[in-house]
């Protein structure tokens, strides 16, 4: 039972001052084992804050990040799953499933976490699952101003992943979940 937090595109302090208070009250240290961040934090203070929630932090570089030394892509293994992170501005067209699937095959991961579009999506295709946690602060994106703050928490348990989607809609936190299993025989995520 491993809890992995996936979030990104916070754009603090350029486009948003801080995470919504309701999100902050939920993100307490001690519960989460790993954090995956798609990038665009953008300042060091946000990095430090995420560190306090969980010491194991994986960040990919977004185009507005002030820290230049984050990698473009990163992969890690948690339990039976391989996860990959990439900010997503490098993949053109932005947010296109087929192009992201290409990246996923390149990185050879089961779950690919990308951002940049500031919209939550979760796609499944032959090579695996692509998750976009959206923007945790609701900052406007290059595409649209209408953004709901959102992030994702994954509960990885052997071959099963439960993805909890946290969205702030009209000032209330709404939580949904998505269930999927990995089949070991074929690449098809089932």
């Amino acid at each position, binding site marked *: *039972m491993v809890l992995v937090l996936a979030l990104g595109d916070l754009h603090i302090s350029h486009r948003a001052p801080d995470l919504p208070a309701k999100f902050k009250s*939920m*993100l307490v240290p001690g519960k989460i084992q790993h954090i995956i961040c798609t990038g665009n934090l953008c300042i060091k203070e946000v990095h430090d804050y995420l560190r306090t929630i969980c010491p194991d932090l994986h960040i990919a570089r977004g185009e507005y990040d002030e820290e230049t030394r984050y990698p473009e892509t990163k992969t890690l293994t948690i339990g039976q799953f391989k996860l990959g992170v990439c900010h997503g501005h490098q993949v053109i067209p932005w947010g296109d499933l087929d192009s992201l699937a290409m990246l996923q095959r390149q990185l050879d991961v089961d779950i690919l976490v990308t951002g940049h579009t500031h919209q939550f999506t*979760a796609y*499944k*295709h032959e090579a695996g699952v692509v998750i976009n946690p959206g923007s945790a602060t609701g900052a406007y994106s290059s595409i649209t101003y209408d953004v709901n703050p959102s992030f994702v928490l994954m*509960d990885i348990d052997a071959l099963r992943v439960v993805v909890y989607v946290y969205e702030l809609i009209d000032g209330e936190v709404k939580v*949904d979940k*998505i269930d999927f299993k990995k089949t070991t025989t074929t690449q098809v995520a089932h």
Partner: protein
Amino acid sequence: MVKKAVPDWLNSSLWYPPPSSAARPGSSATNAAASSSESDAAPPDHSTETVPVPVPLPPSSAVRAEPPEVEIRDPLSDDSDNGASGSPTSTAEDISRQAQILQELSRKVINMGELRRLASQGIPDGAGIRCTVWKLLLGYLPTDRGLWSSELAKKRSQYKHFKEELLMNPSEITRKLENSTSLENEEPKCETGGVLSRSEISHGEHPLSLGKTSVWNQFFQDTEIIEQIDRDVKRTHPDMHFFSGDSEFAKTNQDALRNILIVFAKLNPGIRYVQGMNEILAPLFYMFRNDPIEEHAAFAEADAFFCFVELLSGFRDHFCQQLDNSVVGIRSTISKLSMLLKQHDEELWRHLEVTTKVNPQFYAFRWITLLLTQEFNFADSLLIWDTLLSDPEGPQETLLRVCCAMLILIRRRLLAGDFTSNLKLLQHYPPTNISHMLYVANKLRSHPAR
């Protein structure tokens, strides 16, 4: 006037070995009776071979043939210092006591009064006798032998059920709930591509939930207690291979201790886990795990759990902080000890409490809450527990008498010492002859029993 006289019985020549006939007036009569009932011509060492005890215990007869000193060391071979427990009782008496206990245990309905009387003299170490006797004394096994197997099976399966229910993590719990509610619901099978469907969560159950009734929230709150239990379990008896070290064996034992304490903490939200409970659990689990009967040793965890609950039930209030100052709390028990000392040895009491101002809380707290497990080596504390568990007055009263005896035995040194030396002495109690100490404790009874 202060009573200056040392009690007579303390100074009597009874203490000096080996007055086996006089040391235990109660048992000497039975000893004589037993040996006379056995075959007349046989010398004492072989008297047991001819005892007509209808107990089919093949391992024990082999054990009996060996001299008892080896018998005492074997099950407790990982303790380095066994010196203090080498009591001056003769081998014949030990053997006959074992025979009597075995005889009592082999009856169809066990006479608890008789068993208590025999056990209070000390239970011999061989043949798993202590395991069975402790289980009977703690009420885990019923007195009717015929019911033993059904009771044991019931309790053991109950413990297994507790474990399954309480030691599950929230992922598994939520999965179980879903499986039971949505068996017919389609799983997103055969979706080769496209957006994954989102589904509602039930009852607001998500990992970051801060709700009081949330399974996840409770899980994270429990992790604190579990961490503390973990830390204490790792520190239990670091000198014994049974409990500590890197071996597989030690790890499984530690896991068993941890499980028992976690299940106890979850079943008793009022008291949860308090540091020290691991010390009370350790001898119980050790004894049951080393039961020579394979079948019982395999279920040592379940047996130890129930016996632990039973043993702790008499002392629960000592662990509850809110009850500290109440009539049932630890302070009140300590003052009872103080009064007991005053009653039996006023001079010593006055010297300790008034002259040197050694507050009994400084030493008696650990003696009482941990049932003397920390004051003596492991083997000795088992002997003390024999007496504590078997005494009809109840473990708490007996414990106070034993503590009082501990004080009286070192009275000369205490009377000569000041605050610092007395405190040091009492917090590191010197090794002593345990049977002597238990005899003195026996003598302190207010209603002289036999």
